[in-house]
């Protein structure tokens, strides 16, 4: 019996390791490519570990496309978007989850419809609106667009977390004499923390990775975000600069990893266990 359990556990870990390798391999390959020389990238040898690691791709990437400036722009735009979206999403999600009626139906309908409209359909009208209010080629304009773009899904996501908090918890707080605001601040908000973290990560990553709006709305290289700056390394068939592109993409992935590393501990669930005693 014990032997059987060990075999099963070993197989489970092997499967997990294989899955991790499957997920992690593209990233490992990106790291490998970033450190390979031009001649190694053009050779038939398939090495995960570069034979002669070089930092040339990194210096090329930094020199050519102003990646530092683009990284600052991307982080700034993504943080601004995340903060605004989270601030708007909390009350919105609470209303959607708790108040059943026309508002919920309309809100849910709007969220779902907004997810199926192709970007190409509204990019021109959006451009005209932003031009009218002087926000074309401006990080502030891009933040505004990203807030509108990511808000529906963030609301949808967060309202699921609100719905998972038992109404009983709020009623228990009210019975103990807490006002509605106190219930929200002291009971709902702390219990909602994993949802807030998940929403923040989703919004940050969505804004950080977004390309099309940034490409179309930003005109000056000084305002380019990382996704646009990196795309200048790519040029259809045969002219992409793989080494600097990989080096740039590797650097570009660091902020997302850092944000996730900081917030992931808060993502764990289980906060509700024992919240209501039977």
């Amino acid at each position: 019996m014990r032997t059987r359990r060990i075999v099963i556990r070993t197989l489970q870990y092997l499967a997990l390791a294989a899955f991790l390798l499957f997920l992690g391999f593209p990233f490992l390959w990106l790291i490998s490519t970033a450190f390979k020389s031009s001649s190694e990238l053009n050779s038939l040898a398939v090495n995960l570990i570069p034979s002669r690691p070089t930092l040339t791709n990194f210096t090329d990437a930094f020199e050519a496309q102003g990646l530092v400036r683009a990284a600052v722009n991307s982080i700034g735009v993504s943080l601004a978007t995340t903060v605004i979206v989270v601030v708007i999403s909390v009350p919105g999600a609470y209303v959607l989850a708790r108040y059943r009626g026309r508002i919920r139906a309309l809100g849910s309908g709007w969220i779902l419809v907004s997810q199926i409209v192709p970007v190409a359909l509204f990019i021109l009208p959006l451009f005209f609106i932003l031009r009218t209010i002087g926000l074309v080629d401006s990080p502030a304009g891009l933040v505004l667009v990203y807030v509108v773009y990511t808000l529906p899904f963030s609301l949808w996501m967060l309202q699921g977390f609100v719905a998972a908090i038992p109404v009983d918890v709020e009623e228990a707080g009210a019975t103990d004499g807490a006002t509605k605001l106190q219930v929200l601040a002291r009971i709902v908000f702390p219990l909602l923390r994993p949802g807030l973290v998940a929403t923040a990560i989703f919004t940050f990553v969505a804004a950080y990775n977004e390309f099309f709006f940034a490409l179309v709305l930003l005109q000056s290289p000084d305002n380019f975000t990382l996704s646009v700056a990196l795309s200048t390394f790519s040029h259809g068939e045969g002219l992409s600069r793989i080494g600097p592109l990989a080096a740039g993409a590797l650097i570009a992935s660091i902020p997302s990893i850092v944000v996730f590393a900081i917030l992931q501990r808060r993502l764990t669930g289980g906060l509700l266990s024992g919240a209501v005693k039977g």
Partner: protein
Amino acid sequence: MKLRHTIAALAAAATLFSLSACASPSGSSSAGGTTTLTYQYFNNQPAAIAATKAIVADWNKANPKVHVNLVQAPADNLQDKLTTQFSGGVAPDIIQNDAPSDILPFAGYLADLNKLLPSKTIDDIDPAAKKSLTTGGKLIAAPTEVQTYLVFANKKLLEQSGATIPTGDTMTWDTFEELAKQTTTDGVRGLTWGLKSPTSVFAYLGTGFGATYFTGEGKDAKAVFGKAERQVPERVASMIKDGYIDPTGVTQSSSDVLATFYGGKAAMTVAGSYQIANIESEAPAGFDWVVLPALEGSKSASQLAAPITLSVNAKSKNVQAAADFVDFYMKGENLAKINLADGQVPPTTSGLAALAKLTDGKNGWAQVLASGKNLVTPAFNTLTKYNNWKTTVATPGYQQFLAGQISSDQLSKQLVDGWAQLNQ
């Protein structure tokens, strides 16, 4: 507590950032007697960027009252960007684009260079290149660089096979196929050819057999895929079937197959002339390579005139100044610089002469220059829906054909019917 502090700090940073910058859109401006023009380009190769910067620096030095500001745009999504820039009235003064079919949709927004450039400059342009950029009598762009397709060969493998290395300005397809056969041995293919996107190279080389692919113009344009149009794809398919072409390379891009070429696993590769710049800088030490003469079909050794272009925004506040910069850019020595960096051919008489002088004796350049002397511009070169057809109909069709999934007749039907549907 920590999370609360983090959130407060992020909120403060985000708010400050949002309020920070509201820059003005690109375009020309005039201040203190100095005019500033914006030139949007898409080159991403270090040598070409350096050449562009050098040309602009020369202009700025020679014209202190008209400053040109260089702005790089991503090449892959340039059309989307230009669409919104023109529609939104924030397009730059001078615009670089990739081909006639890419710039033609914006013809209404562009100035007529016939009226703005000196006649000497206009007369210097290759007639086919000029025709490809003329619509309704209006010259909407100046052609600056033309890509041609060439055969690059591993000299050592060619010599080892006992084949005679072709010389002169042209080489027939029969000679080329015979070379592929002769150089195919155990472990070495005669040819590795990146045909992931085969439509362009087939169109370029097909013109040598008199292929036109389309008749009529605009809404009346009809796709044709007859004997002349079938020549190149059928010859290529036959070489794949006979094992002269590396089958893996057929699914890759022309850059992907260079590793096979450099590794001595294939004697030849067909690629755009731009690869001469990559091969020069990336080929392993001791790799002896040559460029073979231009491929000649049954009619000629022609190549498609699909140049990179420079246009002037008709709504620029300084149209003439922008055109003056284009004129400066078109000078023979400037076109020679940029074409040398990009591995392309200048579509002007003075540019060709200047580049010939600049590359005198340099490996492969005599063949590159010779390949650009016989440009043609079939009707499809100026069809605005051609790019759409190329991506959604022709490329998948050719891929199926080369994989042996459909016959030549089925391919013909797919290409013709596909166009009819698109052009409704």
